[in-house]
C-alpha cells in the first residue's frame, strides 16, 4: 500500500512499490493527462510536479513519491480557470496533436515558478521535452507570453 497525494487528494493504492509513478497516476488514480512516451525519461511526456519540481514520472518508482505532493496536468487549472501557461498555450494555438503538450506545460510551469522571466537560453537549457509534431516555435512564443502575462 502506497500513500500518495495527487492534486491535493489523498490516495491509498495497493500496488507494487517498484511501479513507475506514471503508471500509478494513469492506471490506479485514473488521471490520463500524464502520458507515456518512452519509459526512459527521454521525452518528457510524463512530466509531473513532485514537491513543485518537474519530474519524469515514468522513471520514478511510486515508492519514492510516497508522502510527497504530486501535481499532474489535471491539477493546474483551479475551478476551471486556466493557469497563465495554459492560457498562453490556448492563445498561441500551440498544440498540434497535443500528446506531448501536457508534459511540456508541466515542465514550463515548473520553469516559470523558478524563473518568472526566463531567457531563451533558460528555455533551451530547461525545456528538453520531445515534440514530434514540432511545435517548438509556438512553445517558445507561449512561454514568453505567459511570463509577460
Amino acid at each position, binding site marked *: 500500500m502506497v500513500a500518495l497525494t495527487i492534486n491535493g487528494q489523498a490516495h491509498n493504492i495497493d500496488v507494487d512499490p517498484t511501479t513507475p509513478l506514471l503508471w500509478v497516476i494513469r492506471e490506479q488514480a485514473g488521471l490520463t493527462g500524464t502520458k507515456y512516451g518512452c519509459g526512459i525519461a527521454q521525452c518528457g511526456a510524463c512530466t509531473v510536479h513532485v514537491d513543485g519540481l518537474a519530474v519524469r514520472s515514468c522513471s520514478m518508482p511510486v515508492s519514492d513519491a510516497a508522502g510527497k505532493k504530486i501535481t499532474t496536468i*489535471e491539477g493546474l487549472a483551479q475551478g476551471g480557470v486556466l493557469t497563465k501557461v495554459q492560457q498562453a498555450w490556448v492563445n498561441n*494555438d500551440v498544440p498540434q496533436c497535443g500528446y506531448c503538450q501536457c508534459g511540456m506545460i508541466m515542465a514550463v510551469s515548473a520553469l516559470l515558478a523558478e524563473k518568472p522571466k526566463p531567457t531563451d537560453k533558460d528555455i533551451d537549457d530547461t525545456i528538453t521535452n520531445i515534440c514530434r509534431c514540432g511545435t517548438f516555435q509556438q512553445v517558445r512564443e507561449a512561454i514568453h507570453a505567459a511570463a509577460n502575462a
Partner: protein
Amino acid sequence: MNYVPNMNRRSFLTSAAAVGGGLALGIDLPFGPNEAGAQTAAPELGVWVVIKPDDSVVVRVVRHEMGQGTVTGLAQLVAEELEADWSKVTIEHPTPGESVKRKRAWGSFSTGGSRGIRESHEYVRQGGASARMMLIQAAANEWKVPAGEITADKGVLTHKASNRTTTYGKVADAAAKLPVPEKPALKDPKDWKIAGKPLQRFNTVDKVMGKQVYGADLKFPGMLNATIKECPVFGGKVKSFDGAKVAGMKGVKKVLQVGDTAVAVVADTWWQAKVALDALPIVWDEGPNAKVSSASIAEMLKEGLSAEQGFVGNQNGDAKAAIASAAKKVEAVYSYPYQNHAPMEPMNATARYTADKCEVWVPTQDAEASFAAVLAASGLPADKCEVYQIDLGGGFGRRGAFQDYVHQAVRIAKEMPGTHIKLLWSREEDMAQGRYHPIMMAKLTGALDKDNNLTGLHIRLSGQSILASVRPQVVEQEKGRDPLTFQGLFQTGEHSFSYTIPNLLIDHAMRNPHVTPGFWRGVNINQNAIFMECFMDELAQAAGQDELEFRRKLLGNHPRNLAALNAVAEKIGWGKPAPAGIFRGLAHMKAFNAYVAGAAEVSVEGGKLKVHRIVAASDPTYAVNPAQIERQVAGSFVYGLSALYYQECTVKDGRIVETNFDTYDSMRIAQMPKVESIIIQSGGNGPWGGIGEPTICVAAPAVMNAYFKATGKRIRSFPLKNHDIPVA
C-alpha cells in the same frame, strides 16, 4: 500486406497519392442497403451538415486529426459555403460502418499523402453550399417569396423586402425534406470570410487541460490491458514461449500467441502486462533474415548503383551520350537511411469482440483501412463490425496503410469475448516494428559543356520500393516499376521534376531488403530532394556559377517552382552580404502538388552546426488556414531536421538496433531555428496542393548546402551524428 477478408462483395478503388496518376489503393468493402441512419438526431441537410434546433451546426468530417489541422480546415470550408456562424460549429466523425451502409457517401477517410483537404475540398464545399440552398429554399417556401430574394449570413436568413428574418435552426426541419441540390456553384475564394482565415484548431482547451482522450487513454468498464512482442526479425515467427513462467504474476490474465509472429500478455493494468511480457521467455524462429545487417544491405544497394537494369522514371534526350562527351563530368554518390516514424503516442487499438459484434476504437489515419482490418481479423461481416476513430497522438504515415495493431487487438479480443482489450505497444515495440522510411542510395552524374552549361544528368537510384511491399498490385501494373520512388523527379504529375535539362535519365534499381518499408511524412521526397538539390549545388560550384542563378536558368518552364525559389532567396537575402560567420543554402521541389522552397542560414563553430533561420515558401494554390499552414511548415522542419541530425535505424542480426529515443534522438527546442513562412496563393481552377508534407524535403538540402558553404565539406550520407557533427 493484404487485409481483404474472403467474402462476397463489390469492391471499390480509392485513388491514393497518385504519381502520374498511376497509383491506386484497393480496399475491398461490402456495400449494404442504401439506408439512412444519421448518427445525430437532428435534421440532416445532405450528408455533410446537420443543423440543430438551437442553431448549432454540426459539420461531418471523415478525415482524421493528428495535429495537422485538417479537421479544422475542412470545417472552415463547409462553414464558408454554408454561411454559418463559426462560433456555433462543431464537428462529428461518421464511422466506416455508417459509410458502408450509405454507399460511401463521405468518400475517402484516408488521411495521408497530404490529401485531407486538397482531395476533398470541392465536394465538402459543395456539401456546405447545398445545405445553404436548402435552408434558403425552406425559408422561401414558408414566406412564399422567391429564393433569390433571401440572403444567408452567419446562420441567419433575411428577406429584406419584407423585413423578415429567421435562423437556420428554425427552418432546418423543413429544409431537410427538400431535395439536395447537386453541383451547386461555389464561392470565389477571394470572397471567403471563414475559410482562408487563421482560425484556431478545435479541442485546444481540452489538450492543455489533459482532458483530450487519446487511444492510449481509453477506459471501459472491465477493460483489460495488453501489450505485445512480435518477432524482432522481420519475417520471423514464434517458435515457443513459456507462458507458465509469468501466468502467476500479479494481475496477469492471459498469455497468448497472436498469429504466427507475436506473443501478448493481457493483465489488469498495462504496467503488469509489460512487466510480465518482459519476463516471458520467448524463442523465435528468426528465419533466413537473421543474418542481415546494415553492411549487407549497403552492399546490396551499392551493386544497384552500377547495375545494367533500372526502371525509368524520367527520360529525355540521351543522358549517357551527353555525359560521355562532356567537357566536365561531375559525379557523386549519396545515401539515405531507414527511419522510424516514432509518433509520441505508441501504436494502440482497443477492441471488443462478441459473436455478434466487433468494435474497435483506434487512432487511425484511415478508418476504412482499420475497418477492413477488423473484418479480416474478426471474421465477421461488415454489418457486425465498427470502428470509432480517435484523434491521434501523431501519425506521420505510420497509422494509415498499416493496421497491424488493429489486427492484433482484434485477435486478442477474440480470445476473450465480451471484454474490452486495450492493446498498447511499448516504445521499444514501436521502434522494432516500424514501417520504415525506405533506404536509398543515388549516384548522380552531370555533364557540363565547355561553357559550363548543364547538358546532361543521370540519376541512378538504388534501394527499397515501398509499393513493392505495400501495394504490390501497383508495381505489377507498372511492370515492376514503383512510380512513387520518383517523387519530385517524375516526368509528370503531382511530384514532377522541375528542371529542363536537354539530356536526362532518372532510373531506379529496385533493391528490397527484408525490413518493412512504409510511408514516412514526405515519403520519397526526403531523400530525392537531398540528392537533387545538394547535387545541383555541386554542379553549380563545378560550373563556377552562383547556385541560385544556375537553378534559375533551368527553371524557365516551371514558373511556380521558380517563384517559390525566388521568394525564399529574396527573403533570406541571397546575393547580399550575410552577417559574419553566417552561410546560406537553398533548395526547392514540387511535391504533393505544392511548390515549395527553403533557404537556410547556418553557422559552424568548433565543428558544431547551428541553424539560425529557415525561410520557407509554399504554394498550395489556396491557403485554407494560414496559421495552421505556418505551424505545419515549422513542424515539418522539426521532423525533417531531426531526421537529418540524428535519426537512423540500423540493422543487426536481421532486427532494428535502435529501440528508444536514447539512440533515436529527436530535435528539442534548443535546436529549433527561427522559421519564417511565406505562403503563395497562385489561385486558379487547377488542383490544390498539400501542406503537411511538401516542405519537409527542403530543410535538409538547404541546411546541407549552407553547411558546405561554411566548411567546404560535402556530406553525402546521413544522419549527421554519423559524421560527428553536433547541432547547437
